[in-house]
């Protein structure tokens, strides 16, 4: 019965979202305040019912109810309980239910924390969010119902969760990623509401900014976790494959990053207005496109575990409707928004100004997104046009992405020092001198010490460029910080006292920018100094890799909860001193009879030792992959820092002003908006 309750709750939630889509919007045009307020309660009600539905599915998993098709396909009695819970979002149907739950969470958050917004705006935002959940609710109920039964002949044992997904990474990665994807729906709803109302100004930007920033934080953390999961769980030490599904998450992130920057211009200077709106629409459209690419199975991908053309068509139609209607609205209403308060002084800026720097940032980020989009969709288009089956490899993506990132980093250094309206070029040159010299010397000297031997043969130009760009960003940021701490007295002690006085958004920018540098350092150095050896070893063998000696001590059989494994013991020595003992496994999961490599790693800030068992060869011999990966951990450390930066910015006091009674001016603008829309 639990499953039926879940199904009914989902249907109720759909009905509530239909009401949420229609009533507040109609109320905002007709000027009925009660109708507009209803959106808030409907959003909360929808959350309650989607949560009930989600809880029912979780209960079905925990109780091993294999009469549900979805549970039977993705769970097993032997599956450990924490994985039974995470198996809820391990495949298509459940992950869509998670989507719906997270959308309901965001809508409820908007309903609860929008008391300071004009009612017309908040009701329209909620109405648009309601319309999106109608789309997803219909999608789940019509094409991918997780509560479908197999009756009367239901299996007694389930098919088990894909072993690759039986991991801590899968418990946390999808919810984080979805929080980000779906979070952009709030940005989208704000943008569409602004277009409908024709009211779009600094106040709007200040309201929307914390929402956009928090969605972006979740997406950042989600992508970082995904990359980390791929690194240790796929078993072969790669952390980014330019796989279509990875690209699908990176594209909204790039546009989201552009949006986070452009909205600051809109807030502080009133410029970039229609551009900001367009980015908000684009970020959510790309999130939907990502869902389409992942869930329709149109692209060959490690993530395309299941595919179904009917679902693909539904999402494509939904995507077309959302993108088409919002762009049409943008085309019709964008000029209205742009003209409003279009004082020429407000938007003018010179060639060398913070606005120009942020524009450069936006152009680079959006171009990077565009080239990833082309590379990802090209095989699909070529297939449709019968040009042959093509796959676009990493060289294409690296060729564009690496120089663009370097360009961004160079600009980033200058951007922190630049001023609104106009920056003195002389000043930039002066401030940049010391960081430039430090970065140049670090870039030229450090590669000598990082390589295995101090010789020109191992001197790497890539390392020079990576180090130069990273040091440049860090030193420029630190110099700016040092200068900002000078508030009347340049003594060191008084500067340190000022540390707490800088606003959260400033700290956010600093931490995120330094995070980019740390991440770039990890990417660059680990790709240059990574040493990998595939070797054939019998117990007792000793192999040297990049200054470490690995010995294959022994091989045992171990029994896990739902798998049996061959477990090797491999010791790593440096200068004859034991550094680590590693236990890589080759597991065989019983339910699916599927073999999986479980790598063993010894993690460190400056290097990871990474060992995985390949396959058994003749006799006692095994194929073994030994990896020494310098600085690889910096990639995810940087990613986390970028997320932390965003979080600091969200928590900036300026956006958490206590609820004030509605001021005269907002009440007036609300009244005029109602009048205008009623006409």
């Amino acid at each position, binding site marked *: 019965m639990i499953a039926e309750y879940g199904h009914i709750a989902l249907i109720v939630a759909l009905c509530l979202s239909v009401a949420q889509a229609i009533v507040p919007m109609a109320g905002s045009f007709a000027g009925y305040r009660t109708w507009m307020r209803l959106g808030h309660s409907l959003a909360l009600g929808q959350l309650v019912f989607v949560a009930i539905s989600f809880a029912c599915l979780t209960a079905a998993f925990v109780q091993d109810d294999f009469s549900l098709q979805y549970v039977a396909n993705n769970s097993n009695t032997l599956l450990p309980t924490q994985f039974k819970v995470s198996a809820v979002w391990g495949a298509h149907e459940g992950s869509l239910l998670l989507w719906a739950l997270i959308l309901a969470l965001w809508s409820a958050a908007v309903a609860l924390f929008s008391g300071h917004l004009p009612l017309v705006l908040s009701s329209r935002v909620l109405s648009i969010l309601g319309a999106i959940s109608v789309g997803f609710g219909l999608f789940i109920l019509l094409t991918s119902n997780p509560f479908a039964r197999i009756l009367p002949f239901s299996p007694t044992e389930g098919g088990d969760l*894909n072993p*690759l997904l039986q991991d801590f990474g899968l418990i946390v990665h999808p919810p984080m990623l979805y929080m980000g994807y779906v979070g952009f729906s709030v940005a989208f709803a704000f943008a569409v509401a602004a277009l409908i109302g024709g009211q779009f100004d600094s106040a709007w930007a200040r309201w929307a900014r914390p929402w956009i920033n928090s969605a972006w934080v979740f997406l950042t953390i989600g992508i970082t976790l995904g990359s980390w999961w791929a690194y240790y769980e796929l*078993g072969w030490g790669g952390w980014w494959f330019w796989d279509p599904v990875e690209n699908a998450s990176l594209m909204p992130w790039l546009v989201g990053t552009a949006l986070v920057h452009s909205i600051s211009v809109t807030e502080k200077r009133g410029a970039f207005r229609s551009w900001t709106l367009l980015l908000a629409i684009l970020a959510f459209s790309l999130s939907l496109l990502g869902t389409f690419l992942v869930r329709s199975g149109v692209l*060959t991908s*490690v993530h*395309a*575990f299941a595919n179904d053309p009917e679902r693909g068509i539904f999402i494509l139609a939904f995507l077309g409707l959302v993108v088409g209607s919002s762009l049409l609205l943008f085309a019709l209403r964008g000029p209205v928004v742009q003209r409003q308060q279009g004082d*020429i002084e407000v*938007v*003018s*800026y010179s*060639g060398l100004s913070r606005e120009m720097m942020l*524009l450069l940032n936006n*152009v680079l980020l959006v*171009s990077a997104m*565009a*080239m990833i989009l*082309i*590379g990802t969709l*090209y*095989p699909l288009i*070529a297939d449709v046009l019968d040009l*042959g*089956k*093509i*796959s*676009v*490899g990493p*060289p*294409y993506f690296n*060729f*564009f992405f690496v120089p663009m990132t370097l360009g961004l980093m160079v600009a980033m250094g200058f951007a922190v020092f630049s001023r609104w309206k106009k920056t003195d070029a002389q000043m930039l040159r002066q401030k940049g001198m010391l960081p430039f010299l430090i970065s140049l010397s670090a870039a030229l000297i450090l590669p000598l010490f990082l390589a295995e031997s101090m010789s020109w043969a191992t001197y790497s130009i890539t390392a020079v460029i990576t180090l130069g760009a990273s040091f440049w960003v860090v030193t420029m940021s630190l110099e700016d910080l040092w200068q900002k701490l000078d508030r009347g007295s340049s003594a060191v002690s008084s500067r340190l006292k000022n540390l707490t006085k800088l606003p959260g958004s400033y700290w956010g920018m600093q931490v995120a920018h330094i995070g980019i540098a740390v991440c770039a350092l990890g990417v660059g150095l680990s790709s240059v100094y990574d040493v990998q050896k*595939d*070797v*054939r070893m019998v117990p007792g063998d000793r192999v040297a890799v990049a200054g470490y000696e690995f010995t294959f001590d022994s091989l045992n059989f171990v029994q896990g909860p739902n798998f049996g494994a061959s477990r090797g013991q491999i010791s790593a020595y440096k200068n004859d001193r034991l550094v680590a003992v590693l236990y890589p496994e080759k597991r065989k999961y019983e339910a*699916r*009879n*599927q*073999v*999986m*490599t479980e790598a063993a790693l010894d993690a460190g800030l400056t290097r990871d030792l990474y060992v995985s068992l*390949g*396959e058994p*060869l*003749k006799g006692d011999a095994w*194929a073994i*992959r030994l990896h020494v990966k310098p600085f690889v951990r910096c990639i995810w450390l940087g990613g986390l820092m970028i997320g932390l930066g965003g979080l600091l910015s969200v928590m900036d006091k300026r956006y958490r002003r206590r609820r004030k009674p509605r001021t005269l001016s907002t009440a007036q603008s609300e009244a005029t908006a109602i009048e205008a829309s009623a006409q």
Partner: protein
Amino acid sequence: MHPLRKQRLQLVILLVAAAALVIGLVVYMLRENGNFFYTPAQIVSGEAPQSTFLRAGGMVVDGSVLRSDDSLWVQFKITDGVEMLTVEHTGILPDLFAEGEAAIASGKVDENLVLQATQILAKHDEKYTPPEVADAMNAAYKAKQEDKKEQAGSYK
């Protein structure tokens, strides 16, 4: 010209130039780095280009996997049901690589029409067959059926 207009014009010119540059490069790089997929039949018949990077896929033929005793060299055959293609590779094979299962190999075809693979991909899930391989097998199966029909017709 009005300073604002001038500024906008500069911006537009900059954007157009950047877009043109990027599009040109994208088209070039896609041509350089797009790897085509070929079936074993296309490669064995010499239809596929030699010494260009490409991908080939099919089912691993039962009993065709040969291993070296003292290195990680391995040789196996893949088939689309029509022809068999020999693949050689040095390294570790993926977990789900097995005889009778689908695999995709990427690398270059040498003068003996052997694919020297730098990477071997197998499916990630035991129920999943890569769409290219499924298509190739279907096409090969149809071709075979038609051949049989023709042969049957000629016997009559």
